[in-house]
């Protein structure tokens, strides 16, 4: 590790020496109307055919031979600015960009350079167009970026009404979801009806599916990076909305003009009120709070503090039983400019996810809580060496504490006793370095490596078993006690990352990438869709790190002056130590849970086609994905061969959907009316259904022949929406907006799941002698209209 650091430093110093006698232009790019920094703005010097883009903090730096240049700043949705700058020495120039459109609709502050699809090295990445997302129909009218993520090529959803998503054959726990750099462990409200992301405060969102840069790690399949807005530092602004599911209000404004701003936003569910009105004795609430303070001390130092707090609470039978879960995050960031070319971001991040389950009963009452807390320190540096090289490197340290279960009896007489499961601790270090290098006009490379050093540490007690995976009876044989910070188990992995772009002309390119990803935090989800109650666990004596290798190849072409973006990508992903539970695993309240883990192989491949129209009155995207994902794990899907030996048979993962096609479109008819449409089709997901039944005592259990051996019916629905911006908006400060949407227009009965039971009539009475069984399909949403009213002033 020391050597690695020295090499890094040497490289760094050498490079600095090479670039003597040059001048550096740097600065920040901001939206002229509200002071939000702009991410991914193209900064281009035509005379040199050289350029760069702003980083996630809106900063850019470019080093060129001294001279006077016309510098072109361009960004989707903004007027291109050309500025003549005399670079005799280092120059700092921050630019405020004006929006193209002066319509009442909010200006998009997300995006990327117009031709990023073709010229960027990064492949397998999708940037959500939030402006478009807002115009599209949404379930219950609640704009949700996770539902849009589920529409992207290479992304599969488990079904409607869930926030879970599956990227290129990866499991639901293999996505790292970051909000302002803090990980969100469960992004669902109400089990997934909506996500925790309040669209009013989302500035930018990107999904990395492959060719993942070295600065990211910890999850195998994707990184979903969500950034919240900084807060308007020019004007005070209030925004809100009243929807079917929830109400929203956010306030932002300057603390000190152009220097400091704040954002405070809240969303709370309305459902409880409906339930009360309907005299239902179950209660449901959720809320989200986002806050942020943004402070620019001087040109060299900027600080951000952002926080998120969200919770769900569901109660049954007037509070006899209840559940809650929620995320809390805090991010403190410091952007520091060491010199014109060395930019540093230091973040201190805390994230906590917890759930609780409570049953109030004199004899059997208890409260069960579980949580996961992490604190991390990240230092990322970008060194803008010259127009051909941009070096990023850094160090991340994360400490995690896992509390699987703490059970407290709710009364003296409860049959439950106070129990606390062994806590688990982990330390994660990561060192990374990566260089983005332009070789010539055709070829650009991004190459890097991430060294991940993982330690499962004490304090803790680890039980040892005679045979931890014995079919029915793992017996504890011994135990070991570990002191604080003492290593229980360590895993060291080197993760190479490589990306290549070969330009075939101005508007087309070929890209290839390879990445290795390592995951040391595993979610032990039992079903296809992870629930908040599925515990997370660190790698350790019984769980090895999951490791994924992915190769991807893509062809990218833009048409008609970047009006249309097209891409085709193919990938192959191989995963070792993919984690599942053994057949018949006992998951609840099992102190020997580690004996129920099984690890094995997973492999996935697919092809993704996308055409995206980003400009004009009509915008939209059409995608088609063919993919396959299989798993083979000893102890899972157990079968016996001809000799009676048990083996784990290969099976399709529960989210293996072969064909997925999505079309979304938004049409700005005029200033007043905008129309949206969305259609999705996918092959039914695999499910395990019975092959027969038998009698035992008075029961009639099903016989199972194979895991995921059956497919549910195809899944598809069409949704439409209309957004009305009254004309009077144009002349007044207060702006109102109506959004009408219809979900599942032709009322397709999409199977959510299928279960079996004794055949019963509509009144739930058994038909006949009770020997007959039936399968039932649950579907969630028939045609579903909704109305949302939004305000802004």
């Amino acid at each position, binding site marked *: 590790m020391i050597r690695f650091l020295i090499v890094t430093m040497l490289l760094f110093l050498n490079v600095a020496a090479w670039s003597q006698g040059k001048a550096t232009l740097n600065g920040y790019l901001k939206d002229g109307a509200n002071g939000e920094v702009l991410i991914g703005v193209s900064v281009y010097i035509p005379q040199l055919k050289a350029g760069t883009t702003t980083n996630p903090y809106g900063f850019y730096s470019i080093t060129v031979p001294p001279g006077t240049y016309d510098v072109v700043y361009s960004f989707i949705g903004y007027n291109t600015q050309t500025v003549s700058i005399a670079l005799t020495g280092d120059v700092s120039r921050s630019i405020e960009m004006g929006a193209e459109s002066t319509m009442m609709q909010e200006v998009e502050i997300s995006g990327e350079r117009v031709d990023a699809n073709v010229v960027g090295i990064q492949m397998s990445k999708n940037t959500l167009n939030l402006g478009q997302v807002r115009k599209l129909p949404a379930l219950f009218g609640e704009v949700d970026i996770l539902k849009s993520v589920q529409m992207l090529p290479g992304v599969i959803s488990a079904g409607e009404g869930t926030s879970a998503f599956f990227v290129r054959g990866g499991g639901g726990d293999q996505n790292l979801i970051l909000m302002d750099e803090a990980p969100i462990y469960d992004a669902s409200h109400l089990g997934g009806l909506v996500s925790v992301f309040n669209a009013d405060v989302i500035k930018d969102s990107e999904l990395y599916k492959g060719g993942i840069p070295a600065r990211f790690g910890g999850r195998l399949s994707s990184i979903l990076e969500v950034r919240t807005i900084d807060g308007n530092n020019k004007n005070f602004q209030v925004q809100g909305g009243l929807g079917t599911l929830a109400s929203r209000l956010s306030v932002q404004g300057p603390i000190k003009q152009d220097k400091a701003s704040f954002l405070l936003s809240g969303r709370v569910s309305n459902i409880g009120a409906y339930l009360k009105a309907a005299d239902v004795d179950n209660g449901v609430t959720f809320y989200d709070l986002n806050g942020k303070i943004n402070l620019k001390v001087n040109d060299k130092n900027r600080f951000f503090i952002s926080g998120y707090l969200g919770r769900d609470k569901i109660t049954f039978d007037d509070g006899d039983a209840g*559940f809650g879960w929620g995320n809390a995050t805090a991010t403190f960031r410091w952007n520091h400019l060491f010199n014109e070319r060395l930019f540093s971001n230091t973040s201190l991040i805390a994230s906590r996810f917890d759930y609780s389950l409570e049953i109030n009963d004199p004899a059997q009452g208890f409260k069960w809580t579980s949580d996961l807390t992490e604190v991390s320190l990240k230092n990322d540096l970008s060194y803008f060496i010259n127009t051909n090289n941009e070096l990023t490197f850094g160090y991340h340290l994360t400490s995690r504490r896992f509390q699987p279960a703490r059970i407290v009896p709710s009364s003296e007489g409860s049959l439950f*006793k106070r129990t606390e499961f062994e806590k688990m601790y982990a330390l994660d270090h990561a060192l990374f370095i990566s260089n983005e290098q332009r070789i010539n006009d055709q070829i650009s490379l991004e190459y890097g490596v991430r060294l991940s050093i993982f330690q499962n540490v004490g304090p803790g007690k680890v039980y040892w078993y005679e045979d931890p995976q014995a079919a029915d009876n793992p017996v504890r044989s011994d135990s070991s006690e570990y002191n604080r910070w003492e290593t229980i188990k360590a895993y060291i992995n080197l993760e190479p990352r490589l990306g290549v772009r070969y330009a075939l002309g101005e508007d087309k390119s070929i890209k290839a990438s390879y990445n290795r990803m390592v995951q040391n935090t595993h979610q032990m989800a039992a079903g296809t869709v992870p629930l908040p109650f599925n515990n997370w666990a660190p790698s350790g004596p019984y769980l090895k790190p999951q490791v994924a290798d992915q190769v991807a190849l893509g062809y990218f072409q833009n048409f008609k002056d970047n009006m249309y973006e097209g891409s085709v990508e193919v990938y192959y992903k191989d995963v070792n130590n993919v984690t599942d539970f053994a057949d018949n695993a006992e998951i609840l309240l099992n102190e020997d849970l580690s004996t129920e883990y099984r690890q094995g192989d997973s492999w996935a491949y697919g092809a993704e086609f996308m055409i995206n129209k980003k400009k004009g009155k009509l915008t939209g995207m059409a995608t088609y994905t063919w993919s396959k994902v299989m798993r083979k794990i000893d102890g899972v899907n157990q079968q016996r061969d001809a000799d009676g030996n048990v083996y784990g048979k290969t099976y399709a993962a529960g989210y293996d959907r072969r064909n997925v096609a999505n079309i979304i479109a938004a049409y700005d008819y005029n200033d007043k009316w905008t129309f949206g449409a969305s259609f999705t089709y996918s092959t039914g997901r695999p499910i395990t259904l019975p092959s027969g039944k038998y009698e035992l005592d*008075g*029961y009639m259990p099903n016989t199972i022949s194979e895991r995921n051996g059956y497919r549910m019916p195809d899944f598809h629905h069409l949704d439409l929406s209309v957004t009305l911006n009254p004309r009077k908006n144009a002349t007044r400060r207060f702006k109102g907006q109506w959004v009408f949407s219809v979900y599942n227009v032709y009322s397709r009965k999409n*199977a959510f799941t*299928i279960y079996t039971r004794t055949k019963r009539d509509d009144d739930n009475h058994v038909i006949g*002698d009770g*020997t007959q069984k039936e399968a039932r399909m649950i579907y969630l949403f028939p045609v579903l209209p909704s109305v949302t009213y939004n305000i802004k002033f």
Partner: protein
Amino acid sequence: MNKYIKQTALLALTALLVTACDEEYKMDGLKTQSTVVIEGLVTNLPTRQFVKVSRSGDFYASGKTERITNATVQVTDNAGNTYTYVHNPNGHADSVGYYKPAVPFIGQVGRTYNLTVQADGETYTASDEMFHINPIEELEFRVDDDQVDEPEDEDFPNRIYEVLMTVEEPQETRDYYLFRTYRNGERIWAESSEEDPEIYVTDDVLVGGEINDIAIPGYFENGEVAGAEIYSLSRPVFIYYRDLSKILANDGGMFDPPPANPRSNISNNAYGVFQASAISYDEIRIEAAE
């Protein structure tokens, strides 16, 4: 508790959503395979010993599954006894497929019993140990207010009494229990007629090493006789029942683990279980003070 956990997920999505519905779904292309099913019980009570041999059948078939009446069934124990079983010795129509010991016997706590069944030219074997059970110390009844407010079974609004059981739980051993309850001698299969039969099985860890005033499954009305039976189980048989209860309550793998066949203690891929249990029984008549 399991039930509540499952409800969260399904609640948020279905129970809560007035829009959610379910309807019958016809599964096609099911690969049905007929497999031997063996169910054997040895107890410490007279006349309760039996072995049932049948076959698994088609999911959509109605009526009882096919019985095997020409099997050879034998039980031995580790004290050197051999018991030969005969098919339906009393010729009851509803006992087809049931085998009884030719010479009645009573199982002994501490012994291990071995079962051998020959059927369809195959041999199936299993063994199980009979563990001790303490007698039920006390049964009490009381009004359950929740049942008064909202009865579990809407068809029987007078079933408002719950019955509490107390049994001494040995602290030095890890013990496993199966509960069955009776209403006027009739087995209670579920707390409500709207639910499919349920299994009530536990180990002593979950109950904190005590069985004090635990409500037995089912609710009763005034005048009824509530019967409670508690069976000792070995760990493999406990695991079998726990697995069985999982597959009976499975939601199709959306939130539950995908269903799997229970881990059986019977060899050669037969379905079913061979169980040696000591049984304690007690009953109480619900006589409410007017």
